[in-house]
């Protein structure tokens, strides 16, 4: 089906979220909808899926105007949404999840016909090449497979127009590649696809047509053939963006972090960091690459005092930091940007200022004699907000109300405001828009140039290659190779990430 949105406008108190946006997608076409956080992508899709009514503008399907009063009507019209955060019940199996809300029934009482449901799910997954075990429990599935279940769910509801909202945000590079295969297959079969993302290389890889949104309006339309990453980024941000990090060569000096034969167990008692040794020198960035779940999380937790080590030593600038408290690690001069900022990095329900002092509230000048010094806190927080370009109405705003990029800036500001010998940054730009990524990379390189040792852990190959002076690759708990940035090519690192040496 051909879908067309014409001059959609939606005003929220204080923001014009969609300003006369027109987009269209043909049968069997993949439309890449590109835009930063807050560009209006999500509002537009909520209008398309019947959650919001537009203030003005039309939705046309195959040339006929349609009005959606609620999501059920949008689904009926053939529009299927796959949300960024999956809407699945963990204890259900795949078959149940797919048919939920539209179950096949049998008998006079209309009881659930599991056999029929299972058969339909198997048939659908065969037809579209979405391989998934119909009897597996959702909670036992990796995220990439859960996403397939979501897509199956939309297809089961006979969606001709599939909307994927930031589908790669939670996927590994391999899973993303598989997703692209699925998308291409679906498009070939006649499904129209709207692919929402802020990642430039993804739209270039998978879209037939690209529409870029900026500040609630269409900033431009193009095709992958005509577009370059740089041009797309410029359209998206509204100014020229540096996609590669501009930096001089590292001037590595003395060793700051020395990790020797470290072994760490995970919560289930399994050995997940296996005899890992490396060092990071002052003035250099060591980037640790690897597919999510190969021990990087536990490695960082052990280095920052959040997880006990099994054996081995961690020495920071001559001071033994093996199995000390997170507070000791912080006061020893370690800045830690945690992997999961929502869980570890900030406290929602507290203000920007309070989050700024999260791990230094007990130190002067922020407090003395057990009493917080609100003036000093406000002054420092105001300064940090200004220095790190945090977009917030005030320092007394609940951090939960900030965008992801600005939340991360608060965390980075907090960690870099202390005396820093070592920076440990885990997935520092996960889920952020291009502008914020550029900014945070710049700040991390600044720390290195000021003489700090930097350890970056990232599953994004681009990030690893852009920032690392040396690149270490973790696979199944071991460091399977440490390459100098000159030797670290995409192919070599990619192979090591897959556990293939040589």
């Amino acid at each position, binding site marked *: 089906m051909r879908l067309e949105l014409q001059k959609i406008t939606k005003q929220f108190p204080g923001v014009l979220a969609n300003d006369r946006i027109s987009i269209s997608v043909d049968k069997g076409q993949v439309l890449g909808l590109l835009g930063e956080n807050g560009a209006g992508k999500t509002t537009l899709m909520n209008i398309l899926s019947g*959650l919001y009514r537009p203030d003005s503008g039309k939705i046309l399907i195959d040339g006929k105007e349609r009005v959606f009063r*609620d*999501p059920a009507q949008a689904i009926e019209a053939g529009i299927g949404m796959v949300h960024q955060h999956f*809407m699945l019940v963990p204890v259900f199996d795949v078959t149940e999840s797919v048919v939920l809300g539209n179950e096949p029934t049998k008998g006079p009482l209309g009881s659930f016909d599991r056999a029929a449901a299972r058969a339909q799910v198997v048939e659908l997954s065969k037809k579209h090449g979405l391989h998934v075990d119909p009897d597996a429990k959702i909670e036992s599935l990796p995220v990439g497979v859960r996403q397939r279940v979501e897509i199956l769910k939309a297809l089961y509801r006979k969606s001709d127009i599939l909307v994927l909202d930031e589908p790669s945000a939670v996927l590994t590079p391999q899973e993303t590649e598989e997703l692209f295969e699925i998308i291409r297959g679906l498009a070939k079969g006649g499904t129209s696809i709207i692919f929402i993302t802020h990642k430039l290389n993804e739209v270039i890889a998978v879209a037939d047509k690209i529409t870029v949104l900026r500040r609630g309006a269409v900033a431009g339309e193009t095709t992958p053939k005509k577009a370059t990453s740089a041009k797309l980024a410029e359209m998206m941000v509204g100014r020229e963006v540096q996609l590669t990090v501009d930096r001089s060569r590292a001037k590595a000096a003395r060793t700051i972090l020395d990790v020797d034969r470290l072994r760490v167990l995970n919560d289930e008692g399994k050995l997940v960091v296996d005899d890992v040794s490396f060092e990071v020198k002052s003035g250099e960035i060591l980037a640790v690459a690897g597919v999510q779940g190969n021990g990087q999380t536990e490695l960082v937790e052990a280095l*920052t005092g*959040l997880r006990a080590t099994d054996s081995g030593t961690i020495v920071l600038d001559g001071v033994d930091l093996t199995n000390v*408290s*997170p*507070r*000791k690690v*912080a006061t020893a001069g370690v800045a*830690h940007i*945690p992997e999961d900022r929502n*869980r*570890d*990095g*900030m*406290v*929602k*329900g*507290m203000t920007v200022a*309070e989050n700024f002092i*999260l*791990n230094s*509230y*007990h130190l002067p000048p922020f*407090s003395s004699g*057990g*009493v*917080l010094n*609100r003036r000093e806190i406000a002054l420092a927080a105001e300064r940090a907000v200004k220095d790190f370009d945090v977009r917030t109405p005030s320092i007394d705003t609940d951090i939960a109300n900030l965008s992801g990029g600005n939340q991360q800036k608060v965390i980075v500001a907090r960690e870099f405001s202390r005396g820093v010998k070592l920076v440990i940054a885990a997935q520092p730009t996960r889920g952020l828009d291009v502008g914020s990524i550029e900014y945070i990379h710049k700040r991390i390189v600044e720390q290195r140039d000021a003489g700090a040792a930097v350890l970056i852990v990232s599953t994004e190959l681009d990030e690893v290659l852009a920032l690392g002076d040396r690149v270490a690759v973790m696979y199944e708990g071991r460091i399977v190779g440490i390459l100098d940035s000159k030797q670290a090519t995409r192919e070599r690192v990619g192979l090591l990430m897959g556990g293939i040496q040589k």
Partner: protein
Amino acid sequence: MSTMRKIGRALKLPALSMFVAFLVGGVFIFLTDVEMLKQLTSNPLGAVGAGLGRVGAAYGALLRGAFGDPATYGDALASGGDVRVWTRAVRPLVESVVASVPLIFVGLGVSVAFRTGIFNIGGAGQFAIGALGGTTAALLFGAGVTPAPVAIVMIMLFGIAGGALWAFIPGFLKARVGASEVITTIMLNSIASQLIFFVVMNSEFIQQEQRLQPVSKELSKYVDIPGILPIEALRLDIAFPIALLTAVAVSYFLFRSTKGFELRTAGLNLAAAKYAGIGASSSIITAMLISGGISGLGGALVVVGMAKQLAPGVEGSVGFTAIAIALVGRTRPSGVVATALVFGFLQQGGRLMQIETIIPIQMLLFVQALVIAFIAAPDLTMQILKNPFRGLSRRSPNSKLKGVS
């Protein structure tokens, strides 16, 4: 201006919720009038009039019971300075405040625990053991053994110690072995009330001299907790200003001290607290000690001062009412004080309503529950006020968003 506006915004929802709760409560009073319903077919207009009259009478009695009768105030003004007439006029108002005092203490106590993410259901038990501590101190230090101010300080300290001890047990168990505080505090509530019963039955030191009834000795013979009103017969004493001071102290502690910062962090996000180097165990135990100490202080002052005797069931329903108050007051000390006062007025006013109109006290508890329900469901309240029928039939935009998940 902006602070006024902030206060106004903070009060908007509770005030509207209360309004709606009374409205709905009125409908129920109306519908439960059996006489009216009998006449409804023969004389509909008269019946409805009588029903509305009943609602008016009920709420009128509630207001007079809570704040006093305007006519009596008139008499008092006319009498000039006649103490007896004045006493009669202001007694309902004073008693309402008296009723709110234990609610303020326990409401503040459980709020500190809630802020730390601990669901301390044990306010009742901590209040009771605090009362036992206060009683013990009164018997030990009162009756001229030490100067009166010293005795009063000892009563307060014993009360704090008793409540803190009773809260330490579940706090310790949670911190050490992860025992659910909900279970342990509920169990300790039972143990506390049986313990009180046991001592007033069996302890020669505590039980009344004749040892006929399961009650303590008359504490007013040992210590006189000073009143704060110029009229002797009105029993509002220093417990009330101490309650208000406690609220100020709790507010300062939570929002100005580093320890309070730690507790709030732990309460909002335990993982981030760990990241920030805040120990979960010490936060739990600290919060419980403070939480129990405040409830215990309330128990000691209320029993020695206003009740003047320790008896089984001292804690009454204070524990559960205080939980509601803490939640309605959004665990903010100012909110807790305001809500506790409202509940005190409702309790006191309800007595007169029951006497005058034979409407059972349950109806008032029903209204109280409605207030809580409406505050807990702000969307519903706003929708009802906008359009009573739409509010019930259609979901608000917010719930729609969630509903799609």
